[in-house]
């Protein structure tokens, strides 16, 4: 009986075991992600966002589409259960809230500038900038998970840590943003297509 319990425990915890990477494994992952990122000109992907608040019974789920075009045009479009999109383009953040349009100049706003850089970098996965983050590397179920802790105090008021999960090819599967309160937002990407022609009209406001 004890053996059985042990085996069950091993199965439960064993499969989710988070093993720290050796420095050579981490370097190999960095190189792979960087290489993939450098040759990526466009990305389209569907996403499902899970907003976890500890006091709620269920996560708040929203779905949408993402489009990225090098070097720094990004459009997040929520489709369900509401229509809302944010477009980062030329230092400006364009918002379309169910037809109601507004924009914001990010040039003067340090936080938004950083947010834009982070979003672009996290979609491509290439955010291993040691000067801005404390970075740690883990292996989970054959995939890789990297934790980024912002060093900037102003930024860490919003986000305590980013966790990015990469598949074996070095593509981003999941981005998890953890708040100082431990509540988090998890974004799971599916149906990812890279380097397909993407018209500028996608990024028109």
């Amino acid at each position, binding site marked *: 009986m004890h053996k059985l319990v042990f085996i069950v425990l091993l199965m439960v915890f064993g499969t989710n075991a988070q093993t720290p990477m050796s420095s050579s494994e981490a370097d190999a992952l960095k190189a792979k992600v960087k290489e993939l990122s450098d040759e990526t000109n466009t990305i389209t992907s569907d996403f499902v966002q899970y907003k976890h608040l500890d006091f*709620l*019974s269920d996560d*708040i789920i929203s779905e949408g589409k993402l489009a990225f075009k090098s070097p720094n045009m990004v459009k997040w479009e929520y489709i369900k259960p509401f229509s809302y999109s944010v477009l980062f383009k030329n230092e400006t953040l364009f918002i379309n*809230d169910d037809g109601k349009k*507004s924009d914001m100049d990010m040039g003067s706003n340090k936080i938004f500038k950083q947010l834009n850089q982070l979003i672009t970098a996290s979609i491509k996965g290439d955010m291993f900038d040691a000067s801005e983050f404390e970075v740690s590397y883990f292996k989970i179920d054959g995939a890789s998970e990297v934790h980024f802790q912002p060093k900037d105090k102003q930024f860490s*008021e919003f986000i305590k840590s980013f966790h990015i999960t990469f598949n074996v090819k070095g593509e981003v599967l999941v981005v998890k*943003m953890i708040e100082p309160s431990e509540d988090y*937002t998890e974004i799971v990407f599916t149906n990812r297509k890279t380097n397909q022609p993407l018209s500028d009209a996608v990024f028109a406001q």
Partner: protein
Amino acid sequence: MRYLLSSIFALCLVSCASYPKKNGFTKMEATQQSITNVYFGDASKDYVYKANIEAFGNSFSGIFIVKKLGTAHHRIAFTTEMGNKIFDFSFRGKDFKVNHILKKMDRKILLNILKNDFSVLVKEYPSLEKVFQKEKTTVYKTDIENKKYYHFLSEEELTKIVQVKNSKKKVEFTFSEINDNIAKHIQILHQNLNLKITLKAI
């Protein structure tokens, strides 16, 4: 001169009249001690709304979340669509606690406004002072944290709450698209401040 005096007197009669009088309510006999606001009363439900806040010339949107955690105990949070938390408050009896608020918004005046508005929104059993009738609507004069309110019920559904100060409307809460004890559309409109909060259930 006499004309001036009488017109001032007439003006005073109108403007100094109580809120029910000004609005033509008929006083009724009160038969109960409190009324019920059912809209955030089910602890098994997560109440999630898409929110638009127009405040002092700025407009921003996000997700507004209300959760009942126990008797007279609610949690209210507001996040951006992308999930970043803007504020997170706890209301427990008369206690109000700020669990989180963006530093930029951490101003006592703003916090007081939000605290007042949201405590009215989630107050399940406001204590009753008087009852009035206007056509098919029953109007209950209520007291929440020593402030005067009028709860409007049409066919037993809460459709409006008005905060009144010095006989004048100060804040108006309207509830519409009501189904299964959920108001799918809620608006909080301030009369003296440039502040409007619109909530749509998602």
